[in-house]
């Protein structure tokens, strides 16, 4: 019972978070290329605006490079610029240990301009007192349930006692003035009592059943992780694309937790947490976390020696001495459920947040949705299939005809068999 109430309270919290997330995501909808978002999605994993990382600090780049066209060419395919024998390019390439920059052929010139604008305008967040405090920061809510429960019980007892007292007093008064009081009905024959008991009983059964059906669900589960890894710092503040780390999400059924060598792509350079002032890391218990110490934990796992800037290697085999991080799994599906991330991300074109919530606002990740079958099914009932753009669905001739004839506007997942058992259970 108590657990149930607690869970309901958590639900409320989740709803507010959802609301905040929706507000937040509404703000980020803009028509013009968003330099900040583009930078976060494409550049942030290697570049910092004001600090050298895997690549050079980008602030002032428009002044450094030979020309704007050169910069476009470089961003779109740096290797070809280097190969063309360009002097500046070759020098740059050699200076950065011959690490070629990833090619971004899909970025348009406008988008590159937007990124450069963002970089040039960039100011150190801590240095600007007017910078807004991050939204959606929710303090851990203390539970008043027990207090309320005790209070309710006291009040209930008071009600019962007072009613009885009132009754006795009334009867004595009646006896005194000689009015014949109606015959006392035993409480278990009292219709009101029976009705009340039945109602309470039914409600109880209802709660018990709904609790039973939630057996094994872990909504709002927020375990302590071996490393205090803040998604907010990475995906929120630094705007790293989710799939930079969870690269399986578009290829496989598993989104994949990245291996430590993926972390080390950036953390070879980034060895301290500098955002403690603007965004102090605080855990659920309210303790402040030292981000730099957490990065050191990563180095332990990765076998990286920050002093010598090299990996510790086995003297015999030459292999890096490393061990995997044993993360606590938050999103657990039963073994008999087959869920495929790539289908939802690639052909369903769903945003990660649809099921995982505003992860970019979570320092510690918790389970946002209850991941129940009802929740899945509901979404499959309501979600429209990407019917027109995907040639795969061209075989559904009847639906296409109906759309053409104006009989229907869309096709729901459930209408192409999305509710059938063996879509998820086999």
């Amino acid at each position, binding site marked *: 019972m108590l657990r149930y109430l607690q869970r309901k309270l958590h639900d409320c919290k989740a709803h507010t978070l959802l609301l905040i997330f929706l507000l937040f995501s509404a703000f980020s909808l803009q028509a013009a290329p968003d330099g900040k978002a583009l930078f976060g999605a494409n550049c942030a994993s290697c570049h910092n605006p004001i600090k050298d990382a895997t690549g050079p600090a980008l602030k002032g780049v428009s002044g450094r490079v030979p020309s704007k066209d050169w910069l476009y060419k470089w961003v779109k395919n740096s290797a070809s610029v280097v190969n063309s024998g360009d002097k500046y390019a070759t020098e740059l390439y050699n200076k950065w240990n011959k690490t070629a920059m990833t090619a971004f052929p899909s970025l348009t010139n406008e988008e590159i301009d937007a990124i450069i604008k963002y970089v040039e305008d960039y100011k150190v967040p801590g240095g600007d007192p007017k910078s807004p405090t991050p939204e959606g920061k929710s303090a851990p809510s203390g539970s008043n349930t027990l207090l309320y429960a005790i209070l309710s019980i006291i009040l209930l007892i008071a009600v019962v006692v007072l009613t009885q007292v009132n009754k006795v007093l009334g009867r004595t008064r009646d006896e005194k003035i000689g009015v014949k009081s109606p015959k006392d009905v035993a409480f278990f024959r009292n219709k009101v009592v029976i009705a009340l008991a039945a109602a309470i009983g039914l409600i109880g059964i209802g709660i018990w059943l709904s609790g039973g059906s939630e057996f094994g669900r872990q909504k709002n589960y927020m375990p302590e992780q071996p490393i205090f890894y803040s998604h907010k710092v990475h995906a929120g503040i630094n705007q790293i694309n989710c799939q930079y780390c969870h690269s399986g999400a578009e290829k496989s059924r598993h989104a994949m937790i990245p291996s430590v060598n993926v972390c080390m792509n950036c953390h070879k350079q980034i060895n301290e947490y500098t955002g403690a002032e603007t965004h102090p890391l605080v855990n659920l218990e309210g303790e402040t976390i030292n981000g730099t110490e957490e990065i050191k934990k990563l180095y332990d796992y990765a076998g990286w020696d920050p002093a010598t800037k090299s990996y510790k290697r086995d003297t015999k085999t030459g292999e890096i001495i490393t061990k995997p*991080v044993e993360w606590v799994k938050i999103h657990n599906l039963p073994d008999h459920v087959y869920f495929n991330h790539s289908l939802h991300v690639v052909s369903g074109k769903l945003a990660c947040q649809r099921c995982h919530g505003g992860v970019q606002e979570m320092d510690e990740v918790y389970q946002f949705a209850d991941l129940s079958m009802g929740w899945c099914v509901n979404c499959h009932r309501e979600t429209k299939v990407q019917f027109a753009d995907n040639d795969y669905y061209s075989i559904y001739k009847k639906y296409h005809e109906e759309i053409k004839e104006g009989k229907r506007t869309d096709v729901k997942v459930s209408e192409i068999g999305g509710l059938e058992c063996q879509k998820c259970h086999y």
Partner: protein
Amino acid sequence: MSKKQYWKGLEELNPSVQFQESVANEFREELPFEDISSIATAPTSRRDFLKYLGFTTAAATLAASCEMPVRKAIPYAIKPENVTPGVPLMFASTYVDGGETVPVLVRTREGRPIKIEGNTDSTLTQGATTARVQGSVLGLYDAARLKFPMIDGKEARWESVDKMVTDALATMNGGNVFLVTSSINSPSSLNAVSIFLQKYPGAKHVQYDAMSYSGMLDANLSSFGKRAIPAYRFDTAKVIVSIGADFLGTWISPEIYAKQYSKGRKVSAKNPVMSKHYQIEGMMSLTGGSADERYTCKPSQFGAVASGILNALNGGSANVSPTINKAITKIAADLNANKGAALVVCGSNDANVQILVNAINNAIGAYGTTISMAVNNNTKQGNDHDLNGFAEALKAGQASAVFFYDCNPAYDSRHAKTIADNLAKAKLSVSFNDRLDETTEKCKIAAPSHHWLESWGDAESHTGYLSLIQPTIAPLFKTRAWEESLLKWSGNNTSHYDFVKALWIARLGSQEAYDKALQKGIIEPETMPMAGATFAGNVADATSKIAAAKAGMEVVIYEKIGIGRGASWSNNPWLQEMPDPISKCTWDNYVIMSPNKARELKAEHTDLNEVEREKFVFTLKANGTSIDLPVLVLPGVHDDVVAVAVGYGRSKGVGRAADATDANNGTGKNVYPLLGADASGNTSYSTSVEVSNTGKKYPLAITQTHYNYHSDRPIVHEFTLKEFSSNPMELFNERKHHLEHFTHSWEGGAHGGHDEHKAGGEHEAHAPSGTPGATKTEEDWQEAYRVNGTLYPNHEALGLKWGMSIDVNACTGCGACTIACQAENNISVVGKKQVMLVHDMHWIRIDRYFSGDPKNPDSIQTLFQPMLCQHCDNAPCENVCPVNATNHSSEGINQMAYNRCIGTRYCANNCPYKVRRFNWRDWNEADCFADNKYEDGRRDDMNNDITRMVLNPDVTVRSRGVMEKCSFCVQRLQGAKATAKKEGRVLRDGEASTACMTACPTDAIVFGNVNDTESGIYKLRYEEQKERVFHVLEDIHTLPNINYLSKIRNADEVMSQPKEHHAEAAHAEEKHS
């Protein structure tokens, strides 16, 4: 059409009361409850029961409120670049076992191989696999494999093994060193062997095959001057004659021959031509099952048969037996009429018989047309004379050092006892075998080599046909490639990988070329070079040397499809539990005997009843050895022939499933000691035998009587080629006639607008839409039958509709599909005891039907019908499920939600095809309750941590109390759909395939989207083969999504008994009861 009666076994032909009961009652054992009558007086009263019920419900609620366990998600520390968890990777490699070579693709998940598919790029196998190829992935995870090198039975380090061997070899100073192996066709391995032989000049490489082809090789040497087996082309042969050669099952390269053979068996109304296959044999083989005409004789008569055919070709006559003589005249006429398109093969290991066969092939112009002398088949090269020499040397103490690789002569050779007893005389004995088998346990040193899935390497199964082996997993144990060991002991410290790579870079020119070849897996010529040869064999000499046919009983010692020569297969629970295609027996070997002989020797139970599990045990006495084995009565076997399979009766070290040392629970008996030899020293696989009844009994787990079902209409349809070509529409019209009464609407006069159609008579077909004036075309009555024949709504498949077609004519019954399905779908092995309780779990079973007179073995005709969930659109199982755990998908799949199933088994009871399987026990520790696991010593190794790595992570492991059945490999279909969806394109035909379809060596199974008019299945079903299409039990309107193609036999008649009077009798009985 010809009425005939098919029967799976004699018990069905002469149904006893017990048999009828077993058919009526699928779940034949009593439920494990106390007697019903005692319920009233039971110690647990109804009130107590309710109390317990209440308590357990409350307890469950309490348990439900407990905290969830903390689960970990552990990513790679450093992720390999090409591995994406959840996405399978395919590697081209080559399956090699005892010379048998099959190019394959290995599917790996997260770095562990889980499934093997044939490599369709190979022009030889064309993607064909066998049950053993499919099962070999389980062998990788075999718990009985040696986990480290051993000296004197104790764990040792490789360094100490190296030191011990090199020191010992150094002191021998060119003494007699023997390297004994099975047939090796790997260029790199042979290179390593030759380096070793050069280093130790006294060393000799002995190759032998447990099932020897030495006599055939000898014959080819004297006939053509080349000790090699040529490449056969069954695909170009119009007439195929096999004298005791099981070329579809076990003879030389069965997967290649089955593929080639199937090309000549694909017959359609447009092209009613097929090859003619004669089989003359002693026992009933898999190949005999597919034969058009089959005759039996004693194996000692094979020589007489061969010389009879040779004589008859030249107008002479044969002198074997009246039936055979008649057959030989017919065969000779056919061969003469098809010169240059005929092929004769023989399974005898007698060189003289093989010389006669060569002479026949020469006379019919087979060389250069159906036999290519330009290409050698290198899979069998063993020389029995060399092995004899080795055994003698060992006995005489002249062998100072012995090395064994992929062979087990202390078990699987004629000299087993000599070798086992005298192995200690060698100063140094080393075994590279993967387990502590009969030879290895007698060796001083065990230096286990890798499994092929862990190894680099190459193979040249046919001259010029190369295939490469690459590892799909790092070695699980501390094993080392045997080539690397040989090199090390020859003073060459190259690693095996470097050694193989160097050879291939030298051959192909560059690393890139090698990488490319590895990716493709094979290097082959585009077409097979064909060449003839001049026959120089001495026919007169050979004829004179052929021993006269022996009097009395003879025993045939044969290989089973699943277990083969023994080797590691004996400990493969999948293969042990695979029902033998012909005998349908699992987990044991036995004496196969004809019904007549069984009656004569009182080996039968009352009225040939096969329902009884306990079989009489007989003693076989041959070559001074006697062996006791149970008798299995099988029609189609020559009355004077008994047959026993090798590969059983293994030692403890081979593994728990194979172990025969436990007298009560052992797996079969070793029959290799029955082997004898002919005058030239070649092993002979048949010999005179004395048979006697011990009167004891032993239970056999035969699946023949499991899952019987019956119908007034035939379950299979069979025609002679002549009948079919003269009237291809016979089956179609017959179906139409029988099904037409379903085609009118059930709703009768409710639809007034349809009256005009009704006026046409009661059998009028309604077009589904009721369009006025619809013509009565073929499609119309089928569609009307589908829509109108039922009260249930018609299932509309808007996008995809899966369908499968199974060609009964192409199916040889080999069982590759059964094992492929088992590997793909995590199907449980249940063990012998549970098989006897009809708890076997295979999703696809192959029903083997006989027709003909059991008293006359020559009249027996066999056909195989793979039976799996028919995915009925009007499924009887779906309607009866109380929890809707089984229901229909919009793609035509009868889907099964395991987690919804509460195990009432109503669905299985209501399934007319008997294809549903119930998990009576917790076979795999899949259940959440501890200690609920079913234990049976012989299958328990399936549940250890290593063996469980074989499980397919995309398929749920079912727990106790759950029903399961064929899912059409839904995980593969979903995978293919997902790929197409993500790429934004239409699903292509062939992209989605089932495991059984890809495993099938004869392409008998075709699967695809029936809604796609361009797909193979659509064209087959509605265009190319529409005349042969039928559904099983069509008249009960289940609307299966699986269709079958009728059997066409290229024979004068299909053996049958008139069915009318049987049917009438059955009707009469029904009326009485």
